[in-house]
């Protein structure tokens, strides 16, 4: 029971959208639509699953006073504040002006924090370009040539050097890049499709976990 029912549920839930695609009768389509709407709700619950783990881990850290426990406490306190704003408040702009606290914290705390964390990558790209980007073989040389043409061709300087530079950059994107990306897309899609079929026939059971 504990294994058979989830397997049957997974097979049913995975087959139904596929059947509905090929058998678009009214009844089948209507339940397919209902299933889509239900999944939107279930996805919302699934999105919050990781939060329980996060609370457990950080509470344990604070309780044991292990290394860095103060940071764990900061995580829990800021989580509680933001969750309170979200659960008991609203989002967006107030009608009378200003922002609701949920959106204010997002705009002036979360947004600059996330943006700056990602912006730091610009410095590391420059550092890696200097220290690690080495033309040791044919492949690396091709990579370098491709990178240089795109980097020059995509800035106004490329046009200033010669009008053909941006055209060469565009040709690289449209022809060899498209060919390679298409090969990757098709290859990855075939792999994903094969994996999907394995789950649909019950060979792979990722939903059973370790049990």
């Amino acid at each position, binding site marked *: 029971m504990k294994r058979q029912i989830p397997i049957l549920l997974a097979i049913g839930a995975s087959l139904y959208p596929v059947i509905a695609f090929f058998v678009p009768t009214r009844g089948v389509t209507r339940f397919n639509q209902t299933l889509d709407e239900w999944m939107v709700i279930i996805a919302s619950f*699934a999105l919050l699953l990781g939060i329980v783990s996060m609370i457990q881990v950080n509470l344990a850290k604070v309780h044991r006073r292990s290394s860095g426990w103060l940071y764990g406490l900061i995580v829990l306190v800021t989580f509680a504040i933001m969750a309170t704003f979200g659960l008991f408040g609203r989002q967006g702009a107030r009608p009378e002006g200003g922002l609701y606290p949920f959106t204010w914290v997002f705009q002036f705390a979360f947004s600059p924090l996330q943006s*700056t964390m990602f912006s730091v990558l610009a410095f590391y790209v420059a550092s890696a370009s200097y220290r690690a980007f080495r033309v040791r073989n044919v492949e690396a040389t091709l990579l370098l040539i491709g990178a240089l043409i795109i980097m020059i061709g995509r800035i106004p300087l490329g046009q200033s050097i010669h009008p053909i530079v941006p055209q060469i950059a565009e040709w690289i994107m449209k022809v060899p890049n498209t060919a390679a990306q*298409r090969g990757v897309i098709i290859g990855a899609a075939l792999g994903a499709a094969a994996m999907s079929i394995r789950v649909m026939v019950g060979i792979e059971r990722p939903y059973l976990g370790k049990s």
Partner: protein
Amino acid sequence: MNLQLPGFGEWVAAFFTLCIFSFLYRDNVLYRVAESIFAGISFGYYVGLAKLNTLDPNLFRPLFGDFAAHWTLLIPFTLGLMLYLRYIPKLAWISNWSLAVYIGYYIGVNLLQKLHGDILPQARGTMVSLSGDWGSVIGSGIVFVGVVVVLIYFFFSSPHRGPLKPASRLGIYYLMISFGASFGYTVMGRISLLIGRLTFLVHEWARPLVMAVLGG
């Protein structure tokens, strides 16, 4: 001229920005605190987001507002709550039922996406069109060859010997040119993020502050 100090929000944003940038010099307490605040706010944001945008309008309001018309919403509600039983060891097996429906559904949708939305249109797009000028025919031919040799490179079920070896080599060359192009675009992407932060620091915090302090 309107000389206004940056607002409280701008000060908070500038403070957090400089805390994260301080990591470039070296790891420090301010960076760690900012990182922890970021993590806490992210998780709290998910809670508010789910409640305000999905659970309220799609579940709670219809279910509790007009139960007779929307009683079937009890099904996704129950399945959603069942997911959390994984944290109670004795009842964790029940969460597998809900997880099976959730994962199964997306597996089915994904299969259609990959076959119908990726493989078939991409294969169709790879066919060489012999109508059109010589430039586009040659370009189509180069793309066709490229797709085939890249797929040969990714075929690891048999060793790359005989005719597969040069084909696979050519596939690597196509991939390297594409990765070079991706690197060039990645550099542009990362710099864009830096531009965003520096533009904020200069135009929305530092410039108003300096102008207000110096009196224009």
